[in-house]
């Protein structure tokens, strides 16, 4: 269960960012922003050496004391960043991968929507509900 989900465009501005409502949402925005550096580093590091092996899923970007940040990059350089609660140790790599796959396929659905202009903020309700299903239920 994610605490914050963000979709970042190729030019590194957010297309969609949503976090669990807490008092300090800005903290999540900041975490996502700093994780972009790590993403860029991972992409360029693998760039020359093992391009065959380069996966879309980037894995754990960096851990903090309360949260872990995971990343995923598509062929069109759109990045998905997910912040997960550290205390939730039951969350395994496979589950994170499948959450990213779901994000990717919902994002392609949004792209194929003729009413969506590439580069705009994502306002699709279907996408919203898919992200809601991934986030922690906070009452």
């Amino acid at each position, binding site marked *: 269960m994610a605490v914050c989900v963000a979709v970042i465009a190729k030019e590194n501005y957010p297309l969609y960012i949503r976090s669990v409502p807490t008092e300090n949402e800005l903290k999540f925005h900041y975490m996502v922003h700093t994780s972009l550096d790590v993403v860029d580093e991972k992409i360029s590091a693998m760039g020359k050496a093992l*391009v065959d092996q380069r*996966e*879309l899923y980037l894995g754990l970007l960096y851990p903090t004391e309360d949260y872990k940040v995971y990343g995923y990059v598509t062929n*069109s350089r759109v990045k998905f960043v997910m912040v997960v609660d550290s205390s939730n140790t039951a969350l395994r790599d496979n589950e994170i991968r499948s959450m990213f796959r779901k994000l990717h*396929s919902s994002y*392609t659905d949004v792209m194929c929507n003729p009413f969506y202009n590439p580069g705009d903020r994502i306002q699709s309700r279907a996408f919203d509900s898919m992200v809601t299903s991934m986030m922690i239920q906070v009452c």
Partner: protein
Amino acid sequence: MRARSAGRSLGAGGRRMADAVLFEFLHTEMVAELWAHDPDSGPGGQNMSLSVLEGMGFRVGQALGERNPAWLPPSSSPWAPQAWPGDPPASAWPKCLPLPPRLSRETLAYREELDILKFLCKDLWMAVFQKQMDSLRTNHQGTYVLQDNSFPLLIRMASGLQYLEEAPKFLAFTCGLLRGTLCTLGVKSLVTASVAALPACKFQVVIQKS
């Protein structure tokens, strides 16, 4: 969900039978409609219609660039349907594309421009026109010529030199399609088309270095 996956078992790879024909009809009507609104066909008006068509193709190409899976290495067969838990439902897939093959692991396979162009010639063309591009030539300096000897959107028109003047407007959408897919994959380009004799046509892709 179950009804949609039942629909997927239509033939190998879940191809829908009438899709290609529907796309051809739609395309013909698009061209006819854009030309109909232009009684004084001076050079200005025609260029508008061409750029509108190209723009439409561009938007579709952008979506297709996201939708198509990474290019598979030649050893594996691309069209063997493989079950994958995260497959999108068949109805979410654009009508004329067969269901996508899934890699055992999601990989980014575009090492260089040539790989991207090969992807256009093989996978994109196969997905949209159910055939592969006939030849790809390059001068290794950013210009590629893609040749299709029997382009599906021209094949119904004539075979030879008749209607040669009318042919370019039927290629505008496809030029945009190529440009849009390249744009999603991160390559800025300029695509033009030329016809020497129907139904063979050539698409010239010039990569813009920024």
